[in-house]
């Protein structure tokens, strides 16, 4: 287990300090939360381009003749539809259908995959997968070998063009959800992200990641911390593992049924629970809730009530002021009776009730 009292430094720690970052512990790492401020960083990603340190995230390489079949029995999405160099969002579930982790699985080649997992779940995922691994599949946790950047925003492709013209032979960005390995796998580019904007993620060895970070800044990307990453993903209703996703809730309840292929060959762990929920209906739904009036920013754990209700019907799993929209937003697992868009609710903040309502996901519309 990681020692909570001494979080690990990122391989980019010295770069962040030069930029005047404020740090906070996150998933056992000491990570930059913000530089100039969450609001300008958020705006940079929505309007131009930002660069985030995601060195804390985990990289697992899976390889061997039975790799596709084996992984497909542990992941909710269907790996069989992926061509080479394509990725997909997917989940690892426990036997009860609860979420252990959400991740991106990339097919690098025939029976060869990269899994990019959440920092807080690296050990748990590793144990879960390794315990079920057949002899002909090799499994390597290479999280310690890689640092990572998420370069996100409408100008991210332009930033990459400037980065790659700075010297060396580097490829174009892969298409959406695609992946490309460079330099024998020492550099990996993925056209994915978690901000709802175009962009890519770059994984490079811990020895070279700082040079890539500086190249991104020189190419015009604004340094952004995990604070803006959180507001950006929440506006798009992308769930955060450990807050919006937990082993007590299924992906059906979380609204992620699209990423669960119940009919794929061989099934997967947790499948039967999801199939039953799909047929009978889930008791709760992860709903998008906004404050109706001006009020304090909603935050994780604030209780949610029906109007004048005596007892809370839920508590917020995530909450924030939406920098793009200017009002308070959050998500909660609401009983389905009160989870429909338009339903009036109240959020209690420091003993006072504020009017809120369920709205359609996402809060922030897509650019395209």
């Amino acid at each position, binding site marked *: 287990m990681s020692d909570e009292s001494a979080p690990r430094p990122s391989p980019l720690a010295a770069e962040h300090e030069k930029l005047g970052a404020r740090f906070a512990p996150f998933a056992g790492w000491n990570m930059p939360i913000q530089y100039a401020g*969450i*609001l300008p960083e958020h705006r940079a990603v929505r309007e131009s381009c930002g660069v985030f340190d995601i060195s804390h995230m985990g990289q697992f390489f899976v390889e061997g003749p039975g790799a596709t079949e084996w992984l497909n029995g542990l992941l909710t999405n269907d790996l069989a539809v992926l061509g080479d160099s394509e990725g997909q969002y997917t989940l690892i579930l426990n036997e009860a259908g609860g979420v252990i982790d959400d991740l991106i699985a990339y097919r690098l080649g025939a029976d060869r995959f990269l899994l990019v997992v959440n920092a807080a779940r690296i050990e748990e995922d590793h144990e879960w997968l390794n315990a079920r691994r057949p002899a002909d599949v090799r499994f390597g946790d290479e999280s310690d070998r890689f640092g990572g950047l998420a370069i996100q925003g409408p100008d991210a492709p332009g930033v990459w063009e400037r980065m790659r013209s700075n010297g060396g032979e580097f490829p174009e960005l892969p298409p959406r959800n695609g992946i490309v390995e460079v330099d024998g796998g020492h550099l990996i580019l993925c056209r994915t992200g978690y901000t709802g904007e175009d962009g890519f993620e770059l994984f490079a060895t811990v020895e070279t990641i700082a040079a890539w970070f500086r190249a991104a800044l020189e190419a015009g990307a604004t340094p952004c911390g995990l604070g803006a990453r959180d507001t950006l993903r929440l506006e798009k209703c992308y769930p955060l593992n450990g807050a919006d996703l937990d082993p007590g809730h299924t992906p059906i309840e979380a609204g992620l049924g699209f990423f669960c292929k119940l009919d794929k060959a061989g099934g997967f762990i947790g499948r039967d629970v999801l199939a039953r929920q799909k047929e009978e209906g889930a008791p709760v739904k992860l709903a998008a809730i906004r404050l109706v009036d001006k009020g*304090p*920013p909603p935050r994780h754990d604030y209780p949610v009530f029906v109007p004048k209700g005596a007892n809370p019907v839920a508590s917020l799993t995530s909450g*924030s*002021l939406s920098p793009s929209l200017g009002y308070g937003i959050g998500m909660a697992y609401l009983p389905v009776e009160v989870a429909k868009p338009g339903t009036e609710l109240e959020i209690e903040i*420091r003993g006072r009730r504020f009017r809120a309502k369920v709205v359609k996901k996402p809060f922030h519309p897509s650019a395209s």
Partner: protein
Amino acid sequence: MSQIPDHLRYADSHEWIDPSSPEAASVGISDHAQEELTDVVYLELPQVGATVSKGDAIAVIESVKAANDIFAPVSGEIVEVNEALADDPAPVNSDPYGGGWIFKINVGDSGELDSLMDAEAYRGHVG
């Protein structure tokens, strides 16, 4: 370097108070505090007429990331609040010693003002 005006007094918890008019002494948060908070997005003001004791949490200031208490730097009665900040708290960041004043307090015991830090001591406190 953050600004620390010489004519004000400062609390450990980073509130400033103007001692020149103790019947209605303006209180705000220091330049250092607003830099630490960044991006103030919401301010919950104290009640006019409330009687408060030194060290009471009497207002809440929120950035995108977190909610923080504002403490009464001295005991007394709240005589005025800066209502404009309820609509737009930006002056707390942009003008912490001017338009960013948060409330005015009728100081009950001027001895409490003397017990607060002067600018030089506060410079040491944040340095």
